[in-house]
């Protein structure tokens, strides 16, 4: 539950708002590979396809009425022009028959011109969806931007995974993009967002999401 609304963190990194038929994903960072290639770092050009494949899979599972991309959908302003023909087609097919909203982010401040509509932020019932989480925001904020990840150590060993960070009144989504890195939940950037109680890390495991208390998440 998030601010009274049913919210299911999916193992893919998407958030499913059943009551609204809305699927929220954040920080897709399409074309990060080609953005690096422009600077001479030849990352594989398959990141957009990989991200789209995962997105397609989760859309097929929930068949949402609305898909919201919470900003930084493209790694940079030129990404939209660099996206390959096949990937563009895949995206178009995914968009057909449903509402698709691009929230603008710091990497892609200009409206995305690839179908769907664009917005700085939107409301769904009592929830506010925007890219960058705001300190002191009213309860019910869903944001991305920070790429939360958690390092968890138990007697079976240690690992670092992407996670949702939520205290029940607001939620920061993990990055969905194939090449997007993570920022440790213990980083100072998260503290002001959760002034009352530290967030629970909903960590993406292999087959399900595990709720790990903040105390069990370590710094890097």
């Amino acid at each position, binding site marked *: 539950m998030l601010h009274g609304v049913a919210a299911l963190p999916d193992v893919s990194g998407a958030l499913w708002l059943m009551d609204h038929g809305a699927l929220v994903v954040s920080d897709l960072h399409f074309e990060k590979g080609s953005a690096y290639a422009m600077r001479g770092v030849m990352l594989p050009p398959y990141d957009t396809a990989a991200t789209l494949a995962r997105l397609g899979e989760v859309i097929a599972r929930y068949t949402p009425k609305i898909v919201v991309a919470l900003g930084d959908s493209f790694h940079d302003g030129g990404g939209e022009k660099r996206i390959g023909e096949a990937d563009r087609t895949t995206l178009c097919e995914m968009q057909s028959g449903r509402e698709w909203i691009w929230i603008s982010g710091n990497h892609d401040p200009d409206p995305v011109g690839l179908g769907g509509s664009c917005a700085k932020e939107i409301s769904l019932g009592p929830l506010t969806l925007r890219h960058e989480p705001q300190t002191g925001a009213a309860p019910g904020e869903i944001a991305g931007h920070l790429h939360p990840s958690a390092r968890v150590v138990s007697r079976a060993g240690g690992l670092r995974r992407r996670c949702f960070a939520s205290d029940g009144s607001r939620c920061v989504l993990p990055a969905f993009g*194939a090449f997007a890195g993570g920022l440790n939940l213990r980083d100072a950037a998260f503290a002001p967002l959760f002034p009352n109680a530290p967030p629970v890390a909903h960590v993406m495991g292999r087959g399900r999401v595990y709720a790990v208390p903040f105390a069990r998440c370590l710094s890097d």
Partner: protein
Amino acid sequence: MREAKGRLARGPQAFYDGDVTRRPDILPDPFRSWFAARGWSPRAHQLELLKLARQGRSALLVAPTGAGKTLAGFLPSLIDLAGQEGARGEGLHTLYVSPLKALAVDVARNLETPVSDMGLAVRVETRTGDTSASKRQRQRRDPPHILLTTPEQLALLLASADGEHLFATLRRVVLDELHAVVSSKRGDLLALGLARLRKIAPQMTMVGLSATVRDLDELRRWLAPQRGHGEKAELVVAAPGAPPAIAMLDTRERLPWSGHGASHAIPEIYERIKAARLTLVFVNTRAQAEATFQQLWHVNEDALPIALHHGSLDAGQRRRVEEAMAAGRLKAVVCTSTLDLGVDWGDVDLVVNVGAPKGASRLLQRIGRANHRLDESSQALLVPANRFEALECTAAIEAAAEGAQDTPPARTGSLDVLCQHVLGMACAGPFLGDDLYEEIVSAEPYARLRREDFDDAVSFVATGGYALQTYDRFAKIKRMQDGRWRIANAKIAQSYRMNVGAIVESDMLRVRLVRGAPKSSGGAAPAPYTGRVTRGGRVLGEIEEYFLETLAPGDTFLFGGEVLALQGIVENEAHVSRAHSDAPKVPSYAGGKFPLSTYLAARVRKLLASPKAWGALPEQVSDWLALQKEKSLLPPSGKLLVETFPRGGRHYLVAYPFEGRLAHQTLGMLLTRRMERMGLKPLGFVANEYALAVWSIADVGTRAKKELFHMDDLFAQDMLGDDLEEWLQESALMKRTFRTCAIISGLIERRFPGKQKTGRQVTISTDLVYDVLRRHQPDHILLRAAREDAMTGLLDIERLAQMLARVNGRIVHKHLERISPLAVPIMLEIGREPVYGEAQDEILALAAGELVDEAMGG
């Protein structure tokens, strides 16, 4: 000032075998008198090398330590230079390449003796990572006659536009510690550099200086340009020195069943240190170095000056230890492989090797660090830390007595280094694919390189080598009208220079000492520190990031001989404070864990199977083996013993392949997968150097007895097929291997200390790149490179494959009612070593479980 104890100062004594062609008078005059003045006469191998150099032939010199190897290498150059009229200003004559920059610096200093004694107009200079930019500039403009450098610096020089000019005058190349270089990726880099040198200066000859190796012909081919017929350089073998005197400590104490600490033997080691002049105490890992050092100080009632030396310590601290050794101010140094090679820092008269020797050649190399006089035996003491290690020590002593060698076999040049070299050559100047290919296959490690692989490397350098050709407009090297490849812009050459080299360090964090943490009240764990800490504390050294991942703030560990508590990690530094703890968490940092050599493993198996040979073993060990014979079986020669027994409600399967921890870990992963499919419900496994234990819910032993499944099927070779593929996909070791390849090949840039401030969410994780690439282009050149590394490196698949083939159909299964004597050591490792298995999500489940507990407890 440090005494001149270097390699040239150690004089060759009279060693003249009467062969006329080797008579000392082939030495020209200032040299003959110089030898005479020192009371020396040249050794046969020194003259032999001189003769070969005059005939314009390259050679491999194999000589024991103390045989005047380095002087032999330089003598032809010095004589040549002395004979040249106005030698000054005629360009670079001799290039010396050493794997260690400290060695290059030491050799340069020692060359000054003959040069100044004979008044030769010869300029000798070093060029390492520490050389100032202005000096490097000057060296290009006005090169010395003799330049001493490292493989990385050679690559940099060759990749510059004036490299061709600089090396055009080269007559001679001297390669030091060649046996140590050739078995690594740095060797691949050096081999490619030498191929280019041969092209620039076809008149030059090479000499490789090496300790004894298993296969001399491999090294001889390495020194010769390959033209498809296995061409070899000449061979000169110096007379061997006195055989070393190696003993194994037959401890008064009870020899432990397991563990690597050898704490039982510390008082006995201390006694030996006291009796000797200067002792080197070699251990296998930095963690053991820390622990051994700590324990020696515990018993150090005489306050003997005992120091610590390992690769994580601050470089300044290491230099101080080396200087104190050279000055004779130390009694003992506890060290890791950092002192295996290189400069002789003092008058060492005893080498103690704590733990398993791992390989016969490695042991001989270490023992060679003592007593550099040819005619006297080096003294060495082996201290096994547990019973299996006593077997290994015995096998190693026998191997040493026979002079058997087990250096690793020659490697096939790796593709990531090839990619780096291709870019370097483009930085030097435009090249034609055909020409560069021909040059590269003249280097022995790449002699069998297929043209397709070369073309893939070029395409990788240009645009990443992706089947989806979308990066053409961003290409780093471009094809010109005449078909030659050139770099797209100057920035690419700059980036090449920043990323050159074939060593990839793990991500390291500096360890900085800060004042103690504020006292936390109550029993709660101290909150992880993420804020600012007063800077200005001393840097103690560096530690692998992934090691620190196993520590929580407040945890204590040993580092630099002190007990430290982790305060927190701030940017790229681990802040620590001094702490008092009786049970510090000893860091198990991975650095320097060598696998047991195949050769030594075979000897250990043979020793085990033949009770007649047990006389050489400590009594405690032979008693233990006799008990094993009575209760179960001894591992039969040429077969694989598998024991099964129940214990504590679980069913154990223990196998004894003796193939080293790496191969056993891979085997454990694959076995548990297969057992899972067979419905045997495995829970986990643990591996050590000698054995592997898997535990399960199902009674594996009884089921095998009832022939519900066959042990032979469980260990069948086909496990290296799909199971391996599936596992590699997720293996953290595979991802680490890929990361190394990605950095060496230039796919991603190195991270430099201090340059890591950008948040992690914007840096590129090679794990993510690996996942994506594996799914979309599984035959990509970098995945091929990583796979090849995995075969021999962290996963040791090649060795596992050989083992599975060897024991195919030769599994001896012994079902027991209880644990066997031989199984005790591996069973004791459970709970001490990380347990492997499908535990990834287990970690999360355990951590999440606490939330439930909290909730229920309210």
